[in-house]
Protein backbone atom coordinates (compact mmCIF):
# COMPACT_ATOMS: atom_id res chain seq x y z
CA UNK A 1 0.00 0.00 0.00
CA UNK A 2 1.38 3.41 -0.88
CA UNK A 3 1.71 6.09 1.74
CA UNK A 4 -0.64 9.05 1.99
CA UNK A 5 1.99 11.15 3.67
CA UNK A 6 5.66 10.38 3.62
CA UNK A 7 8.97 11.80 4.80
CA UNK A 8 12.20 10.49 3.31
CA UNK A 9 15.53 11.26 4.97
CA UNK A 10 13.95 14.47 6.17
CA UNK A 11 16.00 17.09 7.95
CA UNK A 12 14.74 20.38 9.28
CA UNK A 13 17.45 22.58 10.74
CA UNK A 14 17.11 26.19 11.62
CA UNK A 15 19.43 28.90 12.76
CA UNK A 16 18.71 30.58 16.05
CA UNK A 17 19.48 34.13 17.05
CA UNK A 18 20.14 36.72 14.38
CA UNK A 19 17.92 36.74 11.27
CA UNK A 20 19.22 34.70 8.37
CA UNK A 21 20.27 37.64 6.23
CA UNK A 22 22.67 38.98 8.78
CA UNK A 23 23.75 35.92 10.73
CA UNK A 24 27.07 34.27 10.31
CA UNK A 25 25.70 31.12 11.84
CA UNK A 26 28.40 28.73 12.84
CA UNK A 27 27.56 25.04 13.23
CA UNK A 28 26.73 25.50 16.92
CA UNK A 29 23.95 27.97 16.16
CA UNK A 30 21.87 25.49 14.22
CA UNK A 31 19.03 23.59 15.86
CA UNK A 32 18.72 20.14 14.33
CA UNK A 33 15.01 19.84 15.07
CA UNK A 34 14.46 16.95 12.67
CA UNK A 35 17.64 15.17 11.74
CA UNK A 36 17.11 12.35 9.28
CA UNK A 37 13.63 10.88 9.60
CA UNK A 38 11.80 8.36 7.43
CA UNK A 39 8.11 8.03 8.11
CA UNK A 40 5.22 6.66 6.08
CA UNK A 41 1.60 7.16 6.99
CA UNK A 42 -0.90 5.04 5.10
CA UNK A 43 -4.39 6.24 4.24
CA UNK A 44 -6.82 5.49 7.07
CA UNK A 45 -4.14 5.09 9.69
CA UNK A 46 -3.72 6.94 12.96
CA UNK A 47 -0.07 7.37 13.77
CA UNK A 48 1.06 8.79 17.10
CA UNK A 49 4.33 10.68 17.22
CA UNK A 50 5.53 10.88 20.82
CA UNK A 51 8.51 12.32 22.62
CA UNK A 52 9.57 14.98 25.07
CA UNK A 53 9.46 18.67 24.33
CA UNK A 54 12.32 19.69 22.11
CA UNK A 55 12.59 16.30 20.41
CA UNK A 56 11.39 17.72 17.08
CA UNK A 57 8.01 16.02 16.94
CA UNK A 58 6.05 19.21 16.27
CA UNK A 59 8.53 20.30 13.64
CA UNK A 60 8.19 16.94 11.93
CA UNK A 61 4.40 17.20 12.04
CA UNK A 62 4.50 20.62 10.46
CA UNK A 63 7.11 19.58 7.93
CA UNK A 64 4.80 16.83 6.70
CA UNK A 65 2.34 19.59 5.80
CA UNK A 66 5.22 21.68 4.57
CA UNK A 67 4.58 24.37 7.09
CA UNK A 68 8.30 24.06 7.81
CA UNK A 69 10.97 24.39 5.20
CA UNK A 70 12.93 21.11 4.93
CA UNK A 71 16.71 21.46 4.99
CA UNK A 72 17.18 18.14 3.23
CA UNK A 73 15.08 15.18 2.19
CA UNK A 74 11.68 14.83 0.66
CA UNK A 75 8.12 15.28 1.89
CA UNK A 76 5.37 13.66 -0.14
CA UNK A 77 1.66 13.90 0.08
CA UNK A 78 -0.42 11.58 -2.08
CA UNK A 79 2.76 10.71 -3.94
CA UNK A 80 3.49 14.28 -4.91
CA UNK A 81 6.72 15.89 -3.73
CA UNK A 82 5.67 18.89 -1.69
CA UNK A 83 9.16 20.32 -1.56
CA UNK A 84 9.22 21.14 -5.26
CA UNK A 85 5.69 22.50 -5.56
CA UNK A 86 5.19 26.17 -6.34
CA UNK A 87 3.69 28.29 -3.60
CA UNK A 88 0.35 28.44 -5.36
CA UNK A 89 0.18 24.69 -6.03
CA UNK A 90 1.12 24.01 -2.46
CA UNK A 91 -1.62 26.35 -1.28
CA UNK A 92 -4.13 24.41 -3.34
CA UNK A 93 -2.95 21.12 -1.83
CA UNK A 94 -3.81 22.49 1.58
CA UNK A 95 -7.45 21.74 0.88
CA UNK A 96 -6.57 18.10 1.57
CA UNK A 97 -4.14 18.37 4.49
CA UNK A 98 -4.85 20.23 7.68
CA UNK A 99 -3.68 20.86 11.18
CA UNK A 100 -5.07 21.15 14.70
CA UNK A 101 -2.93 23.15 17.10
CA UNK A 102 -2.16 22.69 20.75
CA UNK A 103 -3.47 25.92 22.14
CA UNK A 104 -7.06 26.65 21.15
CA UNK A 105 -6.68 30.09 22.70
CA UNK A 106 -4.09 31.19 20.17
CA UNK A 107 -5.06 29.16 17.12
CA UNK A 108 -8.26 31.10 16.42
CA UNK A 109 -8.17 34.66 15.15
CA UNK A 110 -9.69 36.70 18.01
CA UNK A 111 -11.27 39.10 15.53
CA UNK A 112 -13.02 36.57 13.37
CA UNK A 113 -16.39 35.13 14.21
CA UNK A 114 -16.54 31.35 14.58
CA UNK A 115 -18.61 31.08 11.42
CA UNK A 116 -16.10 33.09 9.38
CA UNK A 117 -13.20 31.03 10.70
CA UNK A 118 -14.93 27.79 9.69
CA UNK A 119 -15.96 29.10 6.29
CA UNK A 120 -12.40 30.17 5.50
CA UNK A 121 -11.14 26.80 4.15
CA UNK A 122 -14.26 26.46 2.00
CA UNK A 123 -13.95 29.95 0.56
CA UNK A 124 -10.21 30.08 -0.08
CA UNK A 125 -10.36 26.81 -1.97
CA UNK A 126 -13.49 27.80 -3.84
CA UNK A 127 -15.34 24.76 -2.51
CA UNK A 128 -18.56 26.71 -2.27
CA UNK A 129 -19.98 30.21 -2.29
CA UNK A 130 -20.56 32.15 0.88
CA UNK A 131 -24.22 31.20 1.13
CA UNK A 132 -23.70 27.46 0.90
CA UNK A 133 -20.65 27.88 3.13
CA UNK A 134 -22.94 29.09 5.87
CA UNK A 135 -24.97 25.90 5.57
CA UNK A 136 -21.84 23.71 5.58
CA UNK A 137 -20.54 25.56 8.64
CA UNK A 138 -23.79 24.97 10.48
CA UNK A 139 -23.66 21.27 9.64
CA UNK A 140 -20.07 21.05 10.80
CA UNK A 141 -20.92 22.75 14.08
CA UNK A 142 -23.54 20.05 14.60
CA UNK A 143 -20.99 17.37 13.87
CA UNK A 144 -18.50 18.66 16.44
CA UNK A 145 -21.22 19.06 19.03
CA UNK A 146 -21.67 22.82 19.09
CA UNK A 147 -24.82 24.87 18.73
CA UNK A 148 -25.30 26.26 15.22
CA UNK A 149 -25.83 29.70 16.65
CA UNK A 150 -22.24 29.96 17.89
CA UNK A 151 -21.25 30.87 14.31
CA UNK A 152 -22.04 34.49 15.07
CA UNK A 153 -19.84 34.64 18.15
CA UNK A 154 -16.17 35.33 18.80
CA UNK A 155 -13.60 32.81 20.12
CA UNK A 156 -13.09 34.54 23.48
CA UNK A 157 -16.66 33.68 24.45
CA UNK A 158 -15.82 29.98 24.61
CA UNK A 159 -14.02 27.59 26.93
CA UNK A 160 -10.86 25.79 25.88
CA UNK A 161 -12.74 22.60 25.05
CA UNK A 162 -15.29 24.42 22.92
CA UNK A 163 -12.57 26.32 21.09
CA UNK A 164 -10.74 23.11 20.39
CA UNK A 165 -13.98 21.78 18.88
CA UNK A 166 -14.06 24.84 16.64
CA UNK A 167 -10.42 24.34 15.68
CA UNK A 168 -11.11 20.70 14.86
CA UNK A 169 -14.13 21.66 12.82
CA UNK A 170 -11.94 24.07 10.83
CA UNK A 171 -9.47 21.26 10.25
CA UNK A 172 -12.01 18.80 8.88
CA UNK A 173 -14.43 21.05 7.00
CA UNK A 174 -14.23 20.65 3.23
CA UNK A 175 -13.19 16.99 3.38
CA UNK A 176 -9.43 16.94 3.82
CA UNK A 177 -7.76 13.53 3.85
CA UNK A 178 -4.92 14.08 6.27
CA UNK A 179 -4.96 15.89 9.63
CA UNK A 180 -1.93 16.56 11.80
CA UNK A 181 -2.99 17.20 15.40
CA UNK A 182 -0.20 18.81 17.40
CA UNK A 183 -0.78 18.11 21.10
CA UNK A 184 -4.49 18.79 20.67
CA UNK A 185 -5.34 17.73 24.22
CA UNK A 186 -2.56 19.02 26.39
CA UNK A 187 -4.08 22.47 26.94
CA UNK A 188 -7.41 20.97 28.02
CA UNK A 189 -8.84 19.75 31.29
CA UNK A 190 -8.79 16.01 31.78
CA UNK A 191 -12.54 15.48 31.58
CA UNK A 192 -12.58 17.53 28.37
CA UNK A 193 -9.63 15.60 26.93
CA UNK A 194 -11.69 12.43 26.80
CA UNK A 195 -14.52 14.29 25.03
CA UNK A 196 -12.15 15.65 22.40
CA UNK A 197 -10.54 12.26 21.91
CA UNK A 198 -14.00 10.82 21.29
CA UNK A 199 -14.63 13.58 18.78
CA UNK A 200 -11.44 12.76 16.88
CA UNK A 201 -12.45 9.10 16.71
CA UNK A 202 -15.94 10.00 15.55
CA UNK A 203 -14.67 12.32 12.80
CA UNK A 204 -12.20 9.75 11.58
CA UNK A 205 -15.01 7.27 10.95
CA UNK A 206 -17.31 9.84 9.47
CA UNK A 207 -14.87 11.49 7.06
CA UNK A 208 -12.39 8.65 6.46
CA UNK A 209 -9.51 10.69 7.82
CA UNK A 210 -5.87 9.85 8.37
CA UNK A 211 -4.31 11.27 11.52
CA UNK A 212 -0.90 12.08 12.79
CA UNK A 213 -1.21 12.68 16.53
CA UNK A 214 1.74 14.54 17.97
CA UNK A 215 1.85 14.11 21.73
CA UNK A 216 4.14 14.04 24.73
CA UNK A 217 1.72 11.79 26.58
CA UNK A 218 1.90 8.11 25.73
CA UNK A 219 -1.09 7.22 27.84
CA UNK A 220 -3.34 9.55 25.91
CA UNK A 221 -2.48 8.29 22.44
CA UNK A 222 -2.57 4.66 23.40
CA UNK A 223 -6.21 4.13 22.65
CA UNK A 224 -6.37 6.05 19.40
CA UNK A 225 -3.13 5.13 17.67
CA UNK A 226 -2.68 2.26 15.22
CA UNK A 227 1.02 2.88 15.11
CA UNK A 228 3.41 4.73 17.37
CA UNK A 229 6.66 6.48 16.50
CA UNK A 230 8.87 7.58 19.39
CA UNK A 231 11.16 10.51 18.73
CA UNK A 232 14.29 11.54 20.55
CA UNK A 233 16.49 14.51 19.59
CA UNK A 234 15.38 14.73 15.99
CA UNK A 235 15.33 10.99 15.27
CA UNK A 236 12.76 8.24 15.43
CA UNK A 237 14.11 5.68 17.89
CA UNK A 238 11.23 3.22 17.89
CA UNK A 239 8.29 2.66 15.61
CA UNK A 240 5.68 -0.04 15.44
CA UNK A 241 2.12 -1.17 15.96
CA UNK A 242 0.65 0.43 19.05
CA UNK A 243 -0.06 -2.87 20.80
CA UNK A 244 3.55 -4.01 20.31
CA UNK A 245 5.11 -0.76 21.47
CA UNK A 246 2.92 -0.49 24.55
CA UNK A 247 3.10 -4.15 25.50
CA UNK A 248 6.79 -4.71 24.72
CA UNK A 249 8.58 -1.40 24.43
CA UNK A 250 12.01 -2.20 23.05
CA UNK A 251 14.03 1.00 23.17
CA UNK A 252 15.22 1.99 26.66
CA UNK A 253 13.87 5.46 26.00
CA UNK A 254 10.38 4.18 25.19
CA UNK A 255 10.55 2.08 28.34
CA UNK A 256 11.50 5.13 30.38
CA UNK A 257 8.67 7.17 28.87
CA UNK A 258 6.16 4.46 29.71
CA UNK A 259 7.59 4.07 33.20
CA UNK A 260 7.12 7.75 33.89
CA UNK A 261 3.36 7.76 33.37
CA UNK A 262 1.62 7.76 36.77
CA UNK A 263 -1.01 5.16 37.58
CA UNK A 264 -4.13 6.14 39.54
CA UNK A 265 -3.69 3.45 42.17
CA UNK A 266 -1.81 4.37 45.37
CA UNK A 267 -0.54 0.87 46.11
CA UNK A 268 0.93 0.31 42.69
CA UNK A 269 1.97 3.89 42.19
CA UNK A 270 3.97 3.96 45.42
CA UNK A 271 5.65 0.69 44.60
CA UNK A 272 6.73 1.93 41.20
CA UNK A 273 10.30 2.99 40.70
CA UNK A 274 10.24 6.29 38.90
CA UNK A 275 12.74 8.75 37.59
CA UNK A 276 15.17 6.21 36.16
CA UNK A 277 16.32 8.48 33.39
CA UNK A 278 19.58 10.20 34.14
CA UNK A 279 20.19 13.83 33.37
CA UNK A 280 18.45 16.07 30.92
CA UNK A 281 17.61 16.24 27.27
CA UNK A 282 20.83 17.43 25.58
CA UNK A 283 20.68 20.50 23.37
CA UNK A 284 19.47 19.76 19.83
CA UNK A 285 22.20 22.15 18.70
CA UNK A 286 24.88 19.69 19.76
CA UNK A 287 23.49 16.17 19.89
CA UNK A 288 25.70 13.57 21.60
CA UNK A 289 27.97 11.32 19.56
CA UNK A 290 26.93 7.79 18.66
CA UNK A 291 23.45 6.94 19.89
CA UNK A 292 21.91 10.24 20.90
CA UNK A 293 20.30 8.66 23.93
CA UNK A 294 23.43 7.10 25.37
CA UNK A 295 24.26 9.76 28.01
CA UNK A 296 20.89 9.12 29.69
CA UNK A 297 20.49 5.45 28.88
CA UNK A 298 20.44 3.02 31.82
CA UNK A 299 21.72 0.28 29.50
CA UNK A 300 24.36 2.13 27.53
CA UNK A 301 27.29 0.12 26.17
CA UNK A 302 30.62 1.24 24.88
CA UNK A 303 29.54 1.02 21.26
CA UNK A 304 26.67 3.42 21.92
CA UNK A 305 29.07 6.25 22.59
CA UNK A 306 30.64 5.91 19.20
CA UNK A 307 28.28 4.48 16.61
CA UNK A 308 24.84 5.67 15.68
CA UNK A 309 22.36 2.76 15.55
CA UNK A 310 19.90 2.65 12.67
CA UNK A 311 16.22 1.84 12.85
CA UNK A 312 15.93 -1.92 12.29
CA UNK A 313 13.13 -4.42 12.82
CA UNK A 314 13.26 -6.52 15.99
CA UNK A 315 11.60 -9.80 16.98
CA UNK A 316 8.63 -8.25 18.77
CA UNK A 317 7.47 -6.62 15.54
CA UNK A 318 8.51 -3.01 15.74
CA UNK A 319 11.60 -1.22 14.45
CA UNK A 320 14.13 0.07 16.96
CA UNK A 321 17.29 2.15 16.74
CA UNK A 322 19.29 0.56 19.53
CA UNK A 323 22.47 -1.51 19.73
CA UNK A 324 20.84 -3.86 22.23
CA UNK A 325 18.90 -5.32 19.35
CA UNK A 326 21.55 -5.27 16.68
CA UNK A 327 21.95 -8.68 15.02
CA UNK A 328 24.82 -10.77 16.35
CA UNK A 329 27.98 -9.74 14.65
CA UNK A 330 26.67 -6.21 14.30
CA UNK A 331 29.03 -5.25 17.05
CA UNK A 332 31.95 -7.07 18.61
CA UNK A 333 31.15 -8.64 21.97
CA UNK A 334 33.71 -6.46 23.67
CA UNK A 335 31.74 -3.42 22.72
CA UNK A 336 28.56 -4.79 24.20
CA UNK A 337 29.81 -4.47 27.71
CA UNK A 338 27.69 -2.12 29.75
CA UNK A 339 29.42 1.08 30.72
CA UNK A 340 28.69 2.78 33.98
CA UNK A 341 27.76 6.33 33.40
CA UNK A 342 28.77 8.42 36.33
CA UNK A 343 26.03 10.88 37.06
CA UNK A 344 27.35 14.38 36.80
Amino acid sequence: MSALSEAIALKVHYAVGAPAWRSRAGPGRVVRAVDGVDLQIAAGETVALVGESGCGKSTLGRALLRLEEPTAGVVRFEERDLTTLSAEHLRQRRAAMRMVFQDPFSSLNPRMRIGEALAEPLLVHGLCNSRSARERVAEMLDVVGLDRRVAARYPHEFSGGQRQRVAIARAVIGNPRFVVADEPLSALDISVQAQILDLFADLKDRFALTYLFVSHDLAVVRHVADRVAVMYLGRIVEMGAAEDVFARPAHPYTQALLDAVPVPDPTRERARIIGRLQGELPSPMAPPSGCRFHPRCPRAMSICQRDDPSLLPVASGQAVACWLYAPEGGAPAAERTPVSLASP
Partner: protein
Amino acid sequence: MRPVPWLGVLGSLLIAVAVAVAVTAPWIAPAKPTQLDLRARLAPPAWVDGGKSNHLLGTDNVGRDVLSRVIWGSRISLTVGTAAALLGMLLGSTLGLLAGYFRGGVDAVISWLINVQLAFPFTLLAIFLLGTVGGGFAAVVVVLALATWVNYARIVRGQVLAIRERDYVLAARAVGVPTGRTLLRYILPNTAAPIVVVASFSTAQAILTQAALSFLGVGIDPSVPSWGAMLDEGRNYLQSAWWIAVFPGLAIALTVLGVNLLGDWLRDWLDPKSAA
Protein backbone atom coordinates in the same frame (compact mmCIF):
# COMPACT_ATOMS: atom_id res chain seq x y z
CA MET B 1 -24.97 45.90 30.27
CA ARG B 2 -21.77 47.76 29.70
CA PRO B 3 -21.20 50.92 31.69
CA VAL B 4 -21.69 54.09 29.69
CA PRO B 5 -18.28 55.18 28.34
CA TRP B 6 -18.54 58.74 29.64
CA LEU B 7 -15.08 59.75 28.43
CA GLY B 8 -15.90 58.41 24.98
CA VAL B 9 -19.16 60.37 25.00
CA LEU B 10 -17.30 63.51 26.04
CA GLY B 11 -14.75 62.97 23.28
CA SER B 12 -17.45 62.46 20.66
CA LEU B 13 -19.22 65.56 21.91
CA LEU B 14 -16.10 67.72 21.60
CA ILE B 15 -15.43 66.45 18.10
CA ALA B 16 -19.07 66.83 17.10
CA VAL B 17 -19.07 70.45 18.25
CA ALA B 18 -15.81 71.16 16.41
CA VAL B 19 -17.13 69.61 13.20
CA ALA B 20 -20.48 71.38 13.50
CA VAL B 21 -18.71 74.69 13.97
CA ALA B 22 -16.53 74.07 10.92
CA VAL B 23 -19.48 73.12 8.74
CA THR B 24 -21.73 76.00 9.79
CA ALA B 25 -18.99 78.64 9.95
CA PRO B 26 -20.56 81.00 7.34
CA TRP B 27 -23.80 81.12 9.30
CA ILE B 28 -22.67 81.21 12.90
CA ALA B 29 -19.66 83.47 12.63
CA PRO B 30 -20.71 86.98 13.66
CA ALA B 31 -18.37 88.58 11.16
CA LYS B 32 -16.19 87.73 8.19
CA PRO B 33 -12.84 86.44 9.45
CA THR B 34 -10.98 88.91 7.29
CA GLN B 35 -13.16 91.90 8.04
CA LEU B 36 -11.18 94.67 9.70
CA ASP B 37 -12.65 96.85 12.38
CA LEU B 38 -9.87 99.37 12.74
CA ARG B 39 -11.69 101.40 15.35
CA ALA B 40 -11.81 98.37 17.61
CA ARG B 41 -8.24 97.11 17.36
CA LEU B 42 -7.07 94.97 20.27
CA ALA B 43 -10.47 95.07 21.92
CA PRO B 44 -10.59 92.67 24.86
CA PRO B 45 -13.32 90.00 25.24
CA ALA B 46 -16.78 91.34 25.92
CA TRP B 47 -16.80 90.52 29.62
CA VAL B 48 -13.54 92.35 30.32
CA ASP B 49 -13.42 96.10 30.99
CA GLY B 50 -13.33 97.91 27.67
CA GLY B 51 -14.75 94.90 25.83
CA LYS B 52 -17.19 95.43 23.03
CA SER B 53 -20.44 93.51 22.75
CA ASN B 54 -20.03 92.95 19.01
CA HIS B 55 -16.64 91.26 19.55
CA LEU B 56 -17.42 88.53 22.06
CA LEU B 57 -13.86 87.19 22.26
CA GLY B 58 -12.23 90.50 21.41
CA THR B 59 -10.29 91.53 18.33
CA ASP B 60 -6.71 91.23 17.12
CA ASN B 61 -4.15 93.82 16.24
CA VAL B 62 -5.89 94.79 13.03
CA GLY B 63 -9.34 94.61 14.51
CA ARG B 64 -10.48 91.22 13.19
CA ASP B 65 -13.06 89.44 15.30
CA VAL B 66 -11.32 86.61 17.25
CA LEU B 67 -14.47 84.54 17.63
CA SER B 68 -15.12 84.60 13.89
CA ARG B 69 -11.54 83.68 13.15
CA VAL B 70 -11.62 80.79 15.63
CA ILE B 71 -14.83 79.55 14.00
CA TRP B 72 -13.45 79.82 10.46
CA GLY B 73 -10.06 78.53 11.54
CA SER B 74 -11.60 75.23 12.61
CA ARG B 75 -12.08 74.39 8.91
CA ILE B 76 -8.40 74.36 8.06
CA SER B 77 -7.26 72.83 11.30
CA LEU B 78 -9.74 69.96 11.24
CA THR B 79 -9.41 69.08 7.56
CA VAL B 80 -5.64 69.31 7.60
CA GLY B 81 -5.43 67.30 10.80
CA THR B 82 -7.75 64.56 9.61
CA ALA B 83 -6.36 64.33 6.09
CA ALA B 84 -2.78 64.23 7.31
CA ALA B 85 -3.53 61.60 9.95
CA LEU B 86 -5.38 59.40 7.43
CA LEU B 87 -2.69 59.71 4.80
CA GLY B 88 -0.02 58.99 7.38
CA MET B 89 -2.03 55.99 8.60
CA LEU B 90 -2.38 54.58 5.12
CA LEU B 91 1.29 55.02 4.33
CA GLY B 92 2.68 53.99 7.71
CA SER B 93 0.41 51.00 8.33
CA THR B 94 1.04 49.59 4.88
CA LEU B 95 4.80 49.88 5.21
CA GLY B 96 4.72 48.55 8.76
CA LEU B 97 2.58 45.61 7.70
CA LEU B 98 4.89 44.71 4.83
CA ALA B 99 8.04 45.10 6.91
CA GLY B 100 6.70 43.00 9.76
CA TYR B 101 5.23 40.25 7.63
CA PHE B 102 7.87 39.75 4.98
CA ARG B 103 10.85 40.66 7.16
CA GLY B 104 14.21 40.14 5.44
CA GLY B 105 15.11 42.68 2.78
CA VAL B 106 11.72 44.41 2.77
CA ASP B 107 12.04 44.98 6.48
CA ALA B 108 15.62 46.18 6.17
CA VAL B 109 14.65 48.85 3.61
CA ILE B 110 11.57 50.04 5.48
CA SER B 111 13.32 50.05 8.84
CA TRP B 112 16.09 52.09 7.27
CA LEU B 113 13.51 54.59 6.00
CA ILE B 114 11.98 54.78 9.47
CA ASN B 115 15.32 55.44 11.07
CA VAL B 116 16.26 58.09 8.51
CA GLN B 117 12.95 59.82 9.05
CA LEU B 118 13.38 59.70 12.80
CA ALA B 119 16.92 60.97 12.66
CA PHE B 120 16.14 63.85 10.29
CA PRO B 121 14.85 66.98 12.02
CA PHE B 122 11.29 67.24 10.84
CA THR B 123 11.05 71.03 10.94
CA LEU B 124 14.01 71.30 8.63
CA LEU B 125 12.42 68.84 6.23
CA ALA B 126 9.13 70.70 6.34
CA ILE B 127 10.72 74.07 5.74
CA PHE B 128 12.76 72.65 2.90
CA LEU B 129 9.83 70.91 1.22
CA LEU B 130 7.33 73.69 1.67
CA GLY B 131 9.99 76.19 0.69
CA THR B 132 10.62 74.45 -2.62
CA VAL B 133 7.11 73.39 -3.63
CA GLY B 134 5.37 76.24 -1.88
CA GLY B 135 2.62 76.08 0.75
CA GLY B 136 -0.96 75.25 0.08
CA PHE B 137 -3.37 72.75 1.50
CA ALA B 138 -2.21 69.61 -0.31
CA ALA B 139 1.45 70.26 0.28
CA VAL B 140 0.88 70.81 3.97
CA VAL B 141 -1.15 67.61 4.24
CA VAL B 142 1.59 65.60 2.55
CA VAL B 143 4.28 67.12 4.75
CA LEU B 144 2.25 66.40 7.87
CA ALA B 145 1.65 62.81 6.73
CA LEU B 146 5.41 62.50 6.34
CA ALA B 147 5.66 63.65 9.94
CA THR B 148 3.28 60.99 11.26
CA TRP B 149 3.70 57.88 9.12
CA VAL B 150 6.66 56.75 11.21
CA ASN B 151 4.41 56.46 14.26
CA TYR B 152 2.19 53.98 12.48
CA ALA B 153 4.96 52.12 10.72
CA ARG B 154 6.91 51.45 13.91
CA ILE B 155 3.92 50.34 15.96
CA VAL B 156 2.39 48.23 13.20
CA ARG B 157 5.69 46.59 12.34
CA GLY B 158 6.24 45.59 15.96
CA GLN B 159 2.70 44.28 16.29
CA VAL B 160 2.92 42.32 13.08
CA LEU B 161 6.22 40.75 14.09
CA ALA B 162 4.49 39.41 17.19
CA ILE B 163 1.21 38.47 15.51
CA ARG B 164 2.76 36.60 12.59
CA GLU B 165 4.14 34.08 15.10
CA ARG B 166 0.69 33.42 16.52
CA ASP B 167 -0.84 30.04 15.87
CA TYR B 168 -3.84 31.50 14.12
CA VAL B 169 -1.62 32.96 11.41
CA LEU B 170 0.06 29.60 10.94
CA ALA B 171 -3.40 28.03 11.03
CA ALA B 172 -4.48 30.32 8.21
CA ARG B 173 -1.46 29.24 6.20
CA ALA B 174 -2.15 25.59 7.02
CA VAL B 175 -5.67 25.97 5.67
CA GLY B 176 -4.35 27.54 2.46
CA VAL B 177 -5.35 31.15 2.96
CA PRO B 178 -3.46 33.27 0.38
CA THR B 179 -0.93 35.79 1.67
CA GLY B 180 -2.93 38.91 0.84
CA ARG B 181 -5.98 37.58 2.60
CA THR B 182 -3.87 36.56 5.59
CA LEU B 183 -2.55 40.10 5.85
CA LEU B 184 -5.97 41.70 5.57
CA ARG B 185 -8.11 39.28 7.56
CA TYR B 186 -5.77 37.83 10.15
CA ILE B 187 -3.04 40.36 10.79
CA LEU B 188 -4.36 43.83 10.06
CA PRO B 189 -7.50 43.54 12.24
CA ASN B 190 -5.35 42.52 15.17
CA THR B 191 -3.25 45.65 14.83
CA ALA B 192 -6.36 47.84 14.81
CA ALA B 193 -6.17 48.80 18.49
CA PRO B 194 -2.70 50.35 18.38
CA ILE B 195 -3.45 51.94 15.00
CA VAL B 196 -6.45 53.70 16.49
CA VAL B 197 -4.40 54.92 19.42
CA VAL B 198 -1.66 56.19 17.12
CA ALA B 199 -4.28 57.79 14.87
CA SER B 200 -5.75 59.74 17.75
CA PHE B 201 -2.48 61.22 18.84
CA SER B 202 -1.28 61.67 15.28
CA THR B 203 -4.37 63.71 14.45
CA ALA B 204 -3.60 65.82 17.46
CA GLN B 205 0.02 66.02 16.41
CA ALA B 206 -0.98 67.05 12.87
CA ILE B 207 -3.20 69.85 14.14
CA LEU B 208 -0.42 71.12 16.36
CA THR B 209 2.26 70.77 13.68
CA GLN B 210 0.08 72.54 11.19
CA ALA B 211 -0.14 75.31 13.77
CA ALA B 212 3.61 75.23 14.17
CA LEU B 213 4.14 75.42 10.41
CA SER B 214 1.89 78.44 10.17
CA PHE B 215 3.79 79.81 13.11
CA LEU B 216 7.00 79.42 11.12
CA GLY B 217 5.34 81.03 8.16
CA VAL B 218 5.73 78.09 5.79
CA GLY B 219 2.25 76.64 6.09
CA ILE B 220 -0.98 77.62 4.52
CA ASP B 221 -1.43 81.17 3.29
CA PRO B 222 -1.56 83.18 6.53
CA SER B 223 -4.48 85.24 5.30
CA VAL B 224 -6.64 82.11 5.53
CA PRO B 225 -7.59 81.85 9.18
CA SER B 226 -6.29 78.80 10.96
CA TRP B 227 -5.76 78.14 14.65
CA GLY B 228 -2.06 77.80 14.13
CA ALA B 229 -1.74 81.07 12.26
CA MET B 230 -3.73 82.81 14.98
CA LEU B 231 -1.42 81.49 17.66
CA ASP B 232 1.49 82.84 15.66
CA GLU B 233 -0.02 86.27 15.33
CA GLY B 234 -1.03 86.34 18.95
CA ARG B 235 2.34 85.53 20.38
CA ASN B 236 3.57 89.15 20.07
CA TYR B 237 0.62 90.34 22.12
CA LEU B 238 0.62 87.74 24.88
CA GLN B 239 1.35 90.42 27.48
CA SER B 240 -1.04 93.08 26.21
CA ALA B 241 -3.79 91.13 24.41
CA TRP B 242 -3.76 87.52 25.64
CA TRP B 243 -7.09 86.67 24.02
CA ILE B 244 -5.66 86.63 20.51
CA ALA B 245 -3.61 83.53 21.26
CA VAL B 246 -5.54 81.97 24.12
CA PHE B 247 -8.83 81.28 22.31
CA PRO B 248 -7.36 79.48 19.30
CA GLY B 249 -5.10 77.67 21.75
CA LEU B 250 -8.10 76.58 23.74
CA ALA B 251 -9.82 75.38 20.57
CA ILE B 252 -6.76 73.28 19.68
CA ALA B 253 -6.55 71.83 23.19
CA LEU B 254 -10.22 70.87 23.31
CA THR B 255 -10.15 69.30 19.85
CA VAL B 256 -7.01 67.32 20.63
CA LEU B 257 -8.55 66.17 23.90
CA GLY B 258 -11.67 65.13 22.05
CA VAL B 259 -9.72 63.14 19.48
CA ASN B 260 -7.73 61.38 22.17
CA LEU B 261 -10.79 60.46 24.24
CA LEU B 262 -12.59 59.25 21.15
CA GLY B 263 -9.55 57.19 20.14
CA ASP B 264 -9.33 55.50 23.54
CA TRP B 265 -12.96 54.63 23.44
CA LEU B 266 -12.79 53.42 19.86
CA ARG B 267 -9.92 51.10 20.77
CA ASP B 268 -11.99 49.49 23.52
CA TRP B 269 -15.01 49.32 21.29
CA LEU B 270 -13.08 47.58 18.51
CA ASP B 271 -11.98 44.81 20.85
CA PRO B 272 -14.33 41.86 20.39
CA LYS B 273 -13.80 40.94 24.02
CA SER B 274 -15.58 44.11 25.11
CA ALA B 275 -18.67 43.37 23.05
CA ALA B 276 -21.52 42.58 25.44
